[in-house]
């Protein structure tokens, strides 16, 4: 069975986002192959004026209606989302979207103000997700697929000047980011794998 074909069916029947790990497990193909197939499928939808999209965030994928039809679909679903956000929410979401996964302390360095309250609000609204770290302070935040849905884009890379602000030495310097593990941390990486990597790194540093 062709992989792209299979993935399309999986996306169609699923009511929730599918993680890259699930897709790899179900299809029994390797990661790169699956990613390539999703990319192709997603491009077919966005380039051919279709009514569907595959949106991705944080290595989670879900099939969604295409943004051109927003008004009609909204009426059909009797959905009342307005997409209106307070300036503080908007500011915080923007920073998390461009810089995620981001720790609270870094967010606070950028905004110059305590962000506990706003983070909690955004979590409750389902606009961001929290990835637990080993300590509370290590928790990292990413925007959710729900938020990407509001933007009418396929993934965050489509945001204006995304690359420029996502990887930016100047910002890293101002945030005092020196931890190389942070740089190599891959979005959506399996927690176990990540821990294993960190442990290895710890051992390495002990050896030196």
């Amino acid at each position, binding site marked *: 069975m062709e992989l792209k074909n299979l993935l399309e069916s999986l996306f169609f029947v*699923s*009511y929730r986002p599918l993680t890259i790990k699930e897709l790899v497990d179900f299809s029994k193909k390797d990661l790169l192959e699956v990613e390539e197939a999703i990319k192709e499928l997603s491009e077919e939808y966005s380039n051919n004026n279709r009514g569907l*999209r595959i*949106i991705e965030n944080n290595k989670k994928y*879900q*099939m*969604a*209606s*295409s*943004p*051109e039809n*927003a*008004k009609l*679909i*909204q009426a059909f*679903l009797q*959905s009342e*989302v307005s*997409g209106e*956000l*307070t*300036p*503080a929410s*908007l*500011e915080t*979401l*923007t*920073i998390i*979207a*461009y810089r995620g996964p981001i720790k609270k302390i870094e967010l606070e*360095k*950028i*905004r*110059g*103000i*305590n962000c506990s*309250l*706003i983070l909690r609000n955004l979590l409750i609204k389902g606009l961001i997700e929290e990835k637990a770290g080993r300590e509370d302070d290590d928790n990292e935040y990413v925007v959710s697929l729900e938020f990407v*849905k*509001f*933007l*009418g*884009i396929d993934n965050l890379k489509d*945001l*204006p*000047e995304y690359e420029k*602000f996502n990887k930016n030495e*100047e*910002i890293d310097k*101002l945030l005092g980011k020196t931890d190389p593990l942070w740089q190599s941390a891959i979005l959506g990486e399996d927690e176990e794998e990540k821990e294993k990597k960190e442990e290895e790194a710890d051992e390495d540093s002990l050896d030196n």
Partner: protein
Amino acid sequence: MMTINIDKFSGPLSLLLQIIEKEELDITSVNLAKIADEYLEYIKKSEEIRPEAMADFLLMAAKLLYIKSKALLPYLFSEEDQAELDDLAGKLKMYKDFVHLSQKVNKIIGRKRFSFFRSLPKSGRRLNILSDCFFPPKNVSTDVLWTEFKKVLENINFLEEELEKKTILDEVKIEDRIVFIKNIISQKIKINFSNILREAVSRTEIIVNFLAILELVKQKEIIFTQDDLFGEIFLESYQELEIIN
């Protein structure tokens, strides 16, 4: 009073940015020094700042005053300090970048080009609610639940410890002491400090008296002399002195 309409949650950097942009200045440490007073004036009068956020606003005020003092007395500062100050300008620029990005994101959201996910059909939803519900085992009675609940309650340790409460009393006003000292000085040519402190009953009062004197010196109302370290301080009227000389 300036007309800045700051969103009360956006924070000190947002206020700083708005002042800088209103004055049409570039973000440099020199310009940050220039707007320190305006920033202070704003947080003094603003009622929009939530008390929880006040600490962040005050921290920024302290930084600005530091920058201003450096602009006035550059020889007192090391290169290390300079780096720290440039850091604030850099951070403000970074913040500005993100504010501009957030305006772009807002425009994108404003197009209302929302996507929608498949929603669960009604029957599926009902099933979901069932699976999320709690079904107690058959032999659980209300009595059993009550006993278990009491056990839980007993296990909660209440923290009895009370935090120490102390508020600094508004015993003496510095303004009153200034008037008081001025009166004495106008009657006597020279007076010693311990004389003024005769009625002082608390440490706070002594400190306030001392502050009053410092203020009067600054206003060129009086001058003081002290012959030895920790010795008696003598106060004289500034004008008297001028007449004598």
